[in-house]
């Protein structure tokens, strides 16, 4: 019973990592760049929803929609202003450094607007907790919604990429930008769409992250962002099912390590597992060489 409740807590945490990791892996898979500002886009999304609920008294679903719009616009804006000029010109390192710059920029803008006092985010999920085995096992409504959204998003993304023209264009861009351009694909446009989708997902992730763990500050996105990035690498970066699997496993390992070994060492254990997996399988759990990335 104890194991089961740890497992449920692990899935709860892991599903949040997974939903963030989906955004990371999406952008990496297609644009081949690590968007380290992803965690901060999540934070902006959560603040957008927070402001809608607290200041404009919008209902939760409307707040989530506003957050998605804000983040989508922000994502496209970041891509156009900060990343696109560097994509052709410089090495991938330049984009990476810029991403870190964007990350700090977003944190400080939010710091300026909202102040650094932590806000308590009210859950947008009104689903009651699910109680099993006479209340000994307790699954929170947020966890159920997060897991379901995660699976839905994963299925939708896979379908989008394999069934639609834009999706096919993304696949082509991810395999070979130059060839894709020669075939008449608008590479910049495709990358912009990728960022739009990735950032829209970030908004959903931000709202769910803060619904489950209700403390919201300008630095809220950084630690979960790093963990989710780890999850994406763990599952095989570029692979959508891999991000889901990596996120869930990372959450479960973290909670089990806390529960059975040491609350202080849990992060060390999580990252040691990552190192071992990568030593054995350098492309991550579901990552494959070149083919079918995304």
């Amino acid at each position: 019973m104890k194991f089961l409740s740890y497992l449920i807590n692990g899935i709860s945490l892991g599903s949040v990592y997974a939903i963030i990791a989906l955004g990371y892996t999406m952008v990496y898979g297609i644009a081949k760049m690590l968007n380290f500002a992803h965690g901060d886009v999540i934070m902006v999304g959560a603040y957008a929803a927070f402001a809608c609920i607290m200041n404009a008294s919008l209902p939760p679903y409307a707040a989530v929609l506003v957050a998605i719009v804000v983040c989508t616009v922000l994502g496209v804006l970041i891509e156009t202003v900060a990343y696109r000029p560097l994509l052709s010109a410089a090495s991938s390192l330049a984009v990476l450094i810029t991403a870190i710059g964007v990350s700090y920029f977003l944190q400080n803008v939010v710091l300026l607007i909202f102040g650094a006092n932590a806000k308590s985010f009210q859950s947008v999920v009104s689903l009651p907790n699910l109680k099993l085995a006479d209340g000994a096992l307790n699954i929170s409504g947020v966890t159920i919604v997060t897991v379901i959204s995660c699976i839905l998003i994963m299925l939708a993304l896979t379908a989008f990429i394999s069934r639609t023209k834009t999706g096919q264009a993304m696949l082509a861009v991810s395999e070979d930008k130059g060839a894709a351009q020669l075939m008449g694909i608008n590479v910049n446009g495709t990358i912009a769409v990728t960022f739009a989708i990735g950032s829209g997902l970030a908004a959903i992730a931000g709202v769910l992250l803060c619904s489950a763990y209700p403390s919201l500050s300008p630095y809220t996105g950084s630690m979960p962002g790093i963990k989710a990035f780890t999850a994406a690498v763990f599952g095989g970066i570029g692979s959508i099912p891999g991000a889901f699997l990596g996120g869930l496993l990372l959450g479960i390992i973290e909670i089990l390590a806390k529960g059975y070994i040491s609350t202080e060492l849990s992060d060390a254990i999580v990252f040691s597992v990552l190192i071992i997996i990568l030593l054995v399988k350098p492309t991550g759990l579901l990552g494959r060489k070149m083919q079918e990335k995304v």
Partner: protein
Amino acid sequence: MKKFAKIAALAGVSVMMLSSTALAGDTFKIGTIGPLTGAGAAYGNAVMNGAQIAVDEINEAGGINGAQVEFKAEDDQLDEEKAVTAYNSLKDWDMQILLGTVTSGSCLAVSTEAAPDADNIFMLTPSGSQKDCIAAGDNEFRVCFSDPDQGSASAIYIGEHGLAEKVGVIYNSSIDYSKGIYATFRQEAEEQPFEIVAAEAFTNGSVDFSAQLQSLKDAGAELVYLPFYYDEIAVVLKQAKDMDFAPIWFGVDGMDGLLTVEGFDQSLAEGCILLTPFSADAEDELTVNFVTKYQELYGEVPNQFAADAYDGMYILKAAIEKAGATPDMSASEISDIVKVAMTEISVDGLTGTGMTWNADGEPSKSPKTVQIQNGVYVGME
């Protein structure tokens, strides 16, 4: 023409210099340093506001030894390096006495600067509670309890009032504040009629406390001791509710501020007990007067930090009067005589009656506890 302008400018500068030195001799310049923005801003602002009320009262009543008090607060954003920068800018302002800093980490950084073998500026921290943060010199004192004192006082209180037999602890292993309190709590608990059934740690940046809460729940903890800050306590309370875990929550001064978190569901805090030397609902004249003024000016009920700072200003007044210091003395001269006077005075304030200090800078006063009921603090026996 050019020459004339030069002379006029020179004259202007010298007049300005004259007037500023003349001013410096007329008033006591007291500074404070704390987080006015950013994490922990609730503490810094409470200290600034509480001290300002005391300054206004003192000035209205004729000042200290007949001299008015000038008070200035600088922001350190809860950052030790910024605290030192803030300290230097206060020094440029000719600060004579430091009523600070607000938090322990900054206090530790500034204490070496203010020590007798460095700048020798008298320092009284209203709320820096870490044991060592006033240890750099004999001119450093504090108003609040030290962390070890909080830990043992909590254990004694829980034991004497029979609040629980099985006690669990969650603490932040990445900050000295939390670890220090937990260490003395654990030590004192051995002498008390309750047992610590589980103690779980977390580190900075953690968002998930479910594993820790689960293990306390499984261990059957009836009371959970939370020696860390209110931001994280807000998350812990929410997650505990989600898993139907409802022990008695017992916090220390870090829990103070919980009710000011924006968007926080205050019903989660219902029944929380915290060890604090100040309760805003006390009915003595001093507290009623302070709380009324604070609410009028700042629109909220003052917390312990505001009270510590208010007391701190009056403690400085008592010590300066006892020492016979005057505003024309240098900071170093004031420090040398005020530190002696500190051990000789006894002050009645909001956070204790008959407070006295030993040469190590530690106060002697008795702790109080309050409980959160219907969103306000209510004093407990």
